[in-house]
């Protein structure tokens, strides 16, 4: 069900504009964290970034299933990508045998988002870490 007003313009936004993350291996599987920059972004992604959408995007890698764990106190999701590493760290012949690049790959996924919501989901300009 689409709750956005029918007149609103929809943009395609790169996940990396709404969230940051990191990936690593767990045997023949990998995990990717997706951490929203804002609460509004977390709530948007909870609807838009389904395990199915992640599985479809990374399907060419031959994964056998995706599980999403939600961490609302961190505005974060943890995606476990089963069987994505073609045998895993010690056996895979791929250049990215340990799934180190999967985080950067997933942040390239494009999602449709309403014009009004987009500014609420983007990272604030101030850098809190500096």
């Amino acid at each position: 069900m689409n709750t956005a007003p029918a007149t609103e313009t929809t943009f395609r936004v790169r996940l990396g504009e709404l969230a940051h993350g990191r990936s690593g291996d767990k045997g023949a599987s990998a995990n990717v964290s997706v951490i929203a920059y804002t609460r509004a972004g977390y709530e948007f992604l909870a609807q838009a970034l389904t395990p199915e959408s992640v599985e479809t995007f990374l399907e060419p890698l031959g994964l056998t299933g995706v599980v999403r764990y939600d961490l609302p106190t961190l505005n974060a999701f943890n995606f476990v990508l089963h069987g994505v590493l073609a045998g895993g760290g010690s056996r895979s012949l791929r250049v990215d045998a340990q799934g180190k690049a999967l985080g950067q790959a997933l942040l390239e996924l494009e999602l449709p988002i309403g014009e009004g919501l987009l500014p609420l989901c983007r990272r604030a300009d101030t850098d809190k870490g500096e």
Partner: protein
Amino acid sequence: MREPLRIGNAQGFWGDAPDAPARLLSQQPSLDYLTLDYLAEVSLSIMAQQRKRNPEAGYAADFVEVVRSLAPFWRNGSKVRVITNAGGLNPKACAEACALALREAGCEGLRIGVVTGDDVLATLRAQCDGADPELFRNLETGASIRTVLDDLETANAYLGARPVVEALERGADIVVAGRLSDPTLVTAPCIHHFGWAWDDYNRIAAATVAGHIIECGAQVSGGIATRWLDFPDMADVGFPFVEMRADGSCCVTKPEGTGGCVSEETVKEQLLYEIGDPAQYLSPDVCVSLMTTRVQQEGPNRVSVLGVRGSAPPSTYKVSATHRDGFWAQGMLTLFGRDVVKKARRCGEIVLERMRRAGYAPERSQVECIGAGAVVPGVFDEPELLETVLRIGVADPRREVVERFSRELAPLVTAGPQGVTGFSAGRPRVQAVFGYWPCLIEKNEVTPVVEVIEI
């Protein structure tokens, strides 16, 4: 109880910056503990090869050099204590090498605690002959251990904090262990210092999370962060330390004036690094839930981690076993020119075809054109390229097949397309493959042992 307790990490893996421990300690002399993690999943299989050539080897020899680099601090009165899993397959030999280095450096009076008992290879072998087919099943694939029994190389249980705490109680300034659950490097000094009960699961869980956050060294202070490019002076990246409070909460930070960045973003990324179900992160001493965890920026490069919950641990230890799994090699060749990806793929086909015709068809092979979407194959559209790096990997149970491959790449320098270049690394090196075999063992089958050596 004195707080905070300051625990640093200056080695995230075997091969990390060798000068990091001494650098961190000179930047942050108030550190109480320095933890150094050397063991990845299959590191012990590499150490097993070293021990076959020399019975006195089988540990991270780099650690002895680290100890040498720390000797001046101890000579000058530093009370810092070091906890490491550098002992690998041979903690005693590692500790003896450290003792020798410390005597040479004039550090009399120090004590080294040695933790052993994690090696369960003999137990696995003995029990596999029994009737229970469920024992030591592969946690990922469900396969029976009998399928790899003859090829088992190592099997080590991830020990918990108890033997490390015992070593600290017996006055160890340095604790050398083999396989330990990585966060144990941090939970043990907390339990020792604050006197937490073994069933104080929330606090032990909080310390486990603190350990998890710093166990990969610079990964929480700017390394591999999404915003890496924005961080200052990564050439002098500060290694992290946690300020632990008696209630289990902690602040993650790094020394003043160092490069990199500790932010809410870097801490969250590392908190979820290599995690499965965040409600059930298992360690030998506690089952951790991250479901109520909060991460809060307190100031520049200071981030608190709060609200971690814990419950009773499982009755088993996780075991990391490795088994021989044939051989492999990888070779690379740079190509430039029109239709470069087609040319590179053709080169890959030629190498494999020549192996087939010679009767050495490999069991598995992979041809990749780096630059053309090889890292996540098929996920992105292939771009138009003028240059690529051809990477070929082959694997086979027979060493001679992989050796044949290592001789088939160079001939392309003259028989391949125009624009083949950059073949300067020599023939691909044939390497043994070690399969990873995660399984469980009942805790009562494992007996950790602590010894203390006086310098």
